[in-house]
């Protein structure tokens, strides 16, 4: 099917991608606008970035967000990978249906419900809302995404490699660490990055489960946006977009490398 595309298909692609990218592109361009008005181009300027660096509230929020994201992504990657192995390798076990449901439900669950329900749990358990509770909430949400990513990799994984290692005397743990893990590592890394960006991005669940002193960047951006559009937020958004794009490109390269490795084995 490598014929040339019909003009209809080309139109669909052009229009589709223009629609997807134009708003982001405009945001990035206007973060370098010297004028505060969107419709007036006041010349190229990086003053909003300078203002951003001086904005202590945003800086603190960014720091909280990065710490939550890193901690959350680490734990979520471990739990999510374990869950993926359980689903792919351990066939039928008691409560598998419930387990599968619990893995897939958070993916589509409206965030207001997840946020509210976790908050009620934390209050009932007597936990103080703050850094810890946001992290716990984000782990719960993002581990399921890690599971989906790692699972798709494990399904196409040749089990004979693992069995060969065990026939040669390796314990299951050893076989996992020295054969399986290196081969699924790109998917695990991609899962980590996905968990990290999801945590970085979340507004709703963080608003429910966070407390004083643990305001995340999306919460800060949201409250500033509600007060009115400010060019500083454009600058902050541009930085976030750059960060995420870099992450996605790294993840894509890792996946490509993994496909290459798989092809060699």
């Amino acid at each position, binding site marked *: *099917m*490598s014929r040339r*595309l*019909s003009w*209809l*298909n*080309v139109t*669909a*692609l052009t229009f*589709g991608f223009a629609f*997807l990218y134009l*708003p*982001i592109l*405009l*945001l990035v361009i206007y973060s370098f606008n010297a004028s505060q008005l969107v*419709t007036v181009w006041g010349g190229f300027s990086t003053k909003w970035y300078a203002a951003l660096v001086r904005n202590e509230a945003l800086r603190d929020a960014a720091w909280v967000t990065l710490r939550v994201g890193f901690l959350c992504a680490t734990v979520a990657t471990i*739990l*999510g990978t374990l*869950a993926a192995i*359980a689903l792919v390798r*351990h066939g039928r*076990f008691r*409560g598998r249906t419930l*387990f599968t449901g*619990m893995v897939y*439900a958070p993916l589509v*669950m*409206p*965030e*207001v*419900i*997840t946020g*509210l*329900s*976790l908050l*009620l*749990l934390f*209050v*009932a358990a007597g936990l103080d809302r703050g850094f810890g509770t946001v992290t716990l909430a984000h*782990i*719960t949400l993002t*581990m399921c995404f890690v599971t989906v990513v790692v699972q798709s990799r494990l399904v196409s994984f040749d089990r004979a490699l693992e069995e060969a290692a065990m026939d040669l005397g390796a*314990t*299951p743990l050893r076989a996992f660490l020295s054969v399986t893990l290196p081969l699924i590592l790109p998917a695990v890394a991609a899962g980590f990055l*996905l968990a990290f960006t999801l945590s970085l*991005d979340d*507004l*709703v669940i963080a*608003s429910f489960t966070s407390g004083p002193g643990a305001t995340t960047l999306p919460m800060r*951006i*949201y409250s500033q946006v509600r007060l009115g*559009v400010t060019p500083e*937020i*454009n600058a902050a*958004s541009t930085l976030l*977009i750059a960060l*995420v794009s870099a*992450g*996605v490109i790294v993840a*894509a390269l890792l996946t490509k490398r993994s496909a290459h490795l798989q092809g060699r084995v």
Partner: protein
Amino acid sequence: MAVASLRERAGRAIVIGLPYLWLAIFFLLPFLMVLRISLSDPVTAQPPYEPVLRRWTSLAEWREFLLGLDFDNFETLWSDDLYWRAALSSLEIALVSTGALLLLGYPIAYAMARAPERTRPLLVALVILPFWTSFLIRVYAWIAILKPEGLLNAFLLWLGVIAQPLAILNTPNAVYLGIVYAYLPFMILPLYASLERLDPTLIEAAQDLGSTPSKAFWTVTVPLSLPGVVAGALLCFIPIVGEFVIPDLLGGSDTLMIGRTLWSEFFSNRDWPLASAVAVVLLLILVIPIVVYREIEAQRWEAQP
């Protein structure tokens, strides 16, 4: 050997048990909390609801606790038509925008599946990239475009199409636009997955047998891509029903959506029990499409030889 199998069982217990336990505590248990608090009454105290069970061991306290639970919040939801309108309007917005997403996403996914094999990974990456970029920022970007003194109005005025700036921001149209924009990748990817797998020889066969390209499309391509259509529609419909960020930032104060109602009951009115009752209702609304989907899936499996 006995040691090895013991180890194996321990490993299995960790691999399954750890994520299982985590999800049971942080995903399942919270729903029971929502259910229990939706039956409580709001009070100005900490925690802001009653009854509260203070001693697990005392039977008398359990009795009092259970007697304190009632369905008052659900009666409030039932009798106040604000909640009815919010629920219906959420469903309407979700249905209309899922339809719009299908109409817009299908041609794009189709063109992607027809693109030369070498360029397909790049196209997929281009669809995924906005999905990874902050949801909040992507919605926020539309404010600068849609507001009365924003880019779209400036452009239309410059073209001379309109004489007065259009009021788009803070209207339902802005909400539809924002939803379609934010959820488009979720629609394209499952559609693409099912269209890409489609065997092109089937279409060639249909054309060889004399059907026109459009007939081949409607009788071969569309039915075979139906699983992707259903998956994409559900993947969009379910979160859209409970959407909060988009109606809050792009919609007007009269844009009712149930997710937003829940949010304001919780944050503005501080009525946790009522917010929990709204969450229960929202969950019940969402169970319906999932059951329908499972029915369709089951029928499809039965239909297959």
